[in-house]
């Protein structure tokens, strides 16, 4: 059993490092939902998802999404860039963990 707990402890240590570097432990469930949506959408749009898509797929209100994007951007987790096709639209890009 000791070996089992040691292995679990190693796994928890790995997760602790990830949580510490990403620094997302203080997010609310709604903010996390927006964050997960950004991750999932990143698989479909490598050039970044627009905010309308994130609102649609997260099921959150536009204001919650905007507030969360601002928070994620301030903390360096995502990057907001202007769309080349439509200057009024912002594209959301995931930053890689350094």
């Amino acid at each position, binding site marked *: *059993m000791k*070996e*089992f707990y040691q*292995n*679990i*402890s*190693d*796994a*928890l*240590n*790995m*997760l*602790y*490092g*990830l*949580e510490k*570097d*990403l620094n*997302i*432990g203080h*997010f609310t469930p709604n903010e*996390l939902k927006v*964050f*997960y949506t950004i*991750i*999932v959408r*990143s*698989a*479909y749009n490598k050039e970044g998802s627009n905010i309308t898509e994130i609102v649609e*797929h997260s099921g959150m209100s536009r204001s919650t999404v905007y507030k969360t994007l601002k928070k994620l951007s301030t903390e360096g987790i995502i990057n907001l860039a202007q769309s080349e096709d439509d200057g009024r639209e912002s594209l959301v890009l995931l930053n890689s*963990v350094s």
Partner: protein
Amino acid sequence: MKNLLLYSLTAFVFSSVLWIIWSFFTVQSEILPNWIGSLVYLPHAARVLMVVYFGWKAIPGLYLAELWGPLFVAQEAYNIPIMLPSMISVMSVPAALYSLKLFGFPLGTTLKSPLNKRNYKHIGLITMISAFFNALLVNYCLNQMHVNFEPKTGMLIEADINQVLRFFIGDMLGVFIVFIFLAIFLKPVLGNSQSKL
């Protein structure tokens, strides 16, 4: 053989839970389209976590979950022989670990270990290599067995580079999401486990 049952049972339960969650989001709620070659494939996280931390003892449980998961979740959709592709998927993680060992990166737990199982970046590397093996070998196997069916039409198709890429990206993103979820969900425990070491 010590703790074989415990490790195998833990792997089976963890993998099964991820299968059920993944099936809900992909097959049942249809949030993520084209679930064959899903772009967010959660069960790969169970393969990586269990094999990295529990070793070969987790393989029987993982394999059982790989057989049980598809049959329980979408029997009609998985109307193909899955014994061999499932085995390849499970063995993709040991194959990644073995390849890294061959290149002089054995898995360890200390800072001096070339590959440290406490470092999530190293686990990320293992995930990437195993996803590569899984994508390549499973699709090769599906082609050879002539069982790669298009999910909507049911027509037999060749697994092309797009499908291989979908498998690869799906495994990577699936692991990423599960790790983030676990890191947040287990946050109260993580602080304690760190302070005790």
